């Protein structure tokens, strides 16, 4: 079924044969689906370019941030310098404007506003305050890198936790069926019934009051783990539901029966028979969940229910910049640009990954 006009070619056994022929061998060799997928992905330059962009951002935030902070800007991410000054061409400039009134030549009193942080210096006085300072005199460029660290950490770790739990639940539900399936599916339905943002706010706010101290888990209020776990929890049904459906479709296939006949137990069937068959969907869903987790972190932090000060994050930086929109617009715009680039690159790469892994199946993150 050649869909007219779709950009992606259909990859079938014939294509595999062609690929094999291209490599000089006239005989068709068996190639694992992963090898074929890798080859398809390698030909999708758009996806690769955006993967490179994402990796570059990860590199900047995780590896380059401390280098920038200690060797270039000489300002830590939490270093407040509200009363400090910088020197530029012999002039002294306050990092936070002091506000003063002067008599102009026209006889009017001119007042400059106080409390406005310094704008982007773009290298006029060394690397310090390259993108300006925030209202506490902290270096925005440094915080942008460290904030990205937190945002990416939350996005990646939340997506990883969420995916692992969702896989386990989906396998359990679909393998055992019956009451197990019913309970897990209803649990998904219950989480699903909450609007994502409101459930995130509810949990984020409640947990940030006193932290979470029940049993062996001890999380202090204001910890980065709170938004991470909250976001992981909120997205479980969005990964678990499609995966459960896929496992359910595989559950009664012959290869599972064959494995049962050989005496394989539930664990072995779940992890060596079923899991490899949903692995490609898991990869695609994981990429999309990272993108969504990042957007959710930004939304929660913007509203004050996510990352708590003094931790920087792209979301809190936007919330911060909101108050200086007319005087220092870059405070809010810069972190937003970083988020947009990150999320776009994840989405494009996720699309490419899906096209490469199973061109026909439609793994969609249910909305």
């Amino acid at each position, binding site marked *: 079924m050649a869909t007219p006009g779709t950009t992606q070619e259909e990859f079938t056994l014939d294509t595999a044969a062609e690929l094999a022929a291209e490599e000089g061998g006239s005989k068709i060799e068996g190639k694992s689906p992963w090898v074929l997928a890798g080859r398809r992905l390698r030909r999708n330059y758009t996806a690769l370019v955006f993967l490179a962009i994402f990796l570059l951002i990860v590199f900047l935030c995780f590896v380059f941030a401390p280098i920038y902070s200690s060797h270039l800007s000489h300002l830590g991410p939490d270093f407040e310098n509200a009363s400090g000054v910088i020197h530029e061409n012999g002039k002294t400039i306050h990092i936070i404007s002091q506000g003063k009134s002067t008599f102009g030549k026209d006889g009017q009193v001119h007042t400059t506003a106080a409390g406005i942080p310094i704008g982007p210096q773009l290298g006029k006085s060394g690397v310090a305050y390259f993108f300006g300072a925030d209202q506490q005199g902290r270096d925005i460029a440094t915080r942008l890198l460290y904030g990205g660290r937190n945002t990416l950490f939350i996005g990646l770790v939340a997506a990883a936790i969420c995916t692992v739990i969702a896989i386990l639940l989906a396998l359990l539900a679909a393998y055992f069926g019956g009451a197990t399936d019913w309970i897990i599916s209803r649990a998904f339905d219950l989480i699903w019934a909450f609007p994502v943002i409101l459930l995130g706010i*509810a949990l984020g706010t409640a947990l940030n009051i006193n932290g979470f101290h029940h049993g062996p888990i001890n999380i202090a209020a204001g910890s980065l783990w709170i938004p991470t776990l909250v976001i992981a929890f909120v997205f479980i049904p969005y990964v678990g539901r499609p995966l459960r459906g896929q496992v359910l479709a595989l559950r009664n296939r012959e290869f599972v029966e064959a494995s049962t006949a050989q005496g394989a137990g539930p664990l072995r069937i779940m992890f060596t028979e079923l899991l490899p068959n949903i692995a490609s969907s898991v990869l695609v869903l994981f990429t999309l969940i990272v993108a969504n987790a990042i957007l959710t972190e930004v939304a929660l932090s913007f509203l004050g229910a996510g990352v708590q000060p003094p931790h920087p994050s792209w979301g809190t930086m936007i919330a911060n910049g909101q108050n200086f929109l007319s005087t220092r617009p870059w405070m809010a715009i810069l972190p937003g640009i970083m988020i947009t680039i990150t999320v776009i690159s994840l989405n494009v790469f996720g699309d490419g990954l899906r096209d490469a892994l199973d061109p026909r199946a439609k793994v969609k993150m249910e909305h």
Partner: protein
Amino acid sequence: MVTFLIRRVFGMVIVLVLVSFITYVIFFKIPGGDPAQHIAGRTATPANIASIREKLGLNHNVVVQWWDMMKSLLGGTLISYYDGTNVVQQIKEGLPETFSLCIGAAIIWVGFGVLVGVISAVKAGKAGDKAITALALVGISLPVAWLGLVLRYLFCGENPNGLAWFPDGGYVPLTTNPWQWFYHLLLPWFTLAILFIGFYGRVLRSNILDTINEDFVRTAKAKGLSSRRILVKHTLRASLIPIVTLFGLDFAAVLGGGAIITEVVYSIQGVGYYAYQSINTQDLPPLMGVTLYGAAFIVVFSTLVDVAYAYLDPRIRLT
């Protein structure tokens, strides 16, 4: 059909009860602190706290506490810790703002979403499709808060040297001045809608491309129908069914508090804005009220979608 309806409504009620219980536990058990202490404030005497505990029934077990809380919420007597205002009353006051924002945005996102999806499917593979697909992708990748702030900076006079085409936030009731209502909401509508336009466009595009290969479309072609007629009457109709489901749930989510960020960015004092104000004061009853209000919307709407589906599509088994 009647048994199906009864089952569905019964299921809905159970989900609502469980959702409210979970919400109660989230707000009043997870924090671990004493709500009575919270209400009494910092200078409270132990006797003071004890009397509040008694009054709120905090000495009972969780289920009784939850039941009391639900009674006060449904009866409209739940009050805020922070300023003692009536939670239900405040949510009600936010409804016109939230509904104005969401209904307008929904019209825009469905209209543009369908347009984007159809154009990119018809032009599939061509430059137009690629451009639209790329834009849709950008649309689903934008953080809403940031988009709102950028639009305010560009078009609302936040930039001292920039344009001031639109009012910088705020809300005018429809009954006061319809034009001002529209004028104030135009930018917020688009801010809220852009994510969904991108998303619906992408979904619809792939649906249309799948439907084109269906037998009934080939039959229509064989009958000699014009391609426009095939597109509108056959392909689009079938492709829109999944969109209807999506819309039911998304619209519910947006009405139920999903528009919170747009409301905050543009200072529209709707239900979401009310929740936002309560985050910073850690005021739990309003947050619980809004969360339940939002969940109720989603649960009721998803039931409605199911029922509408069963009614429209006779193939769906009524179980």
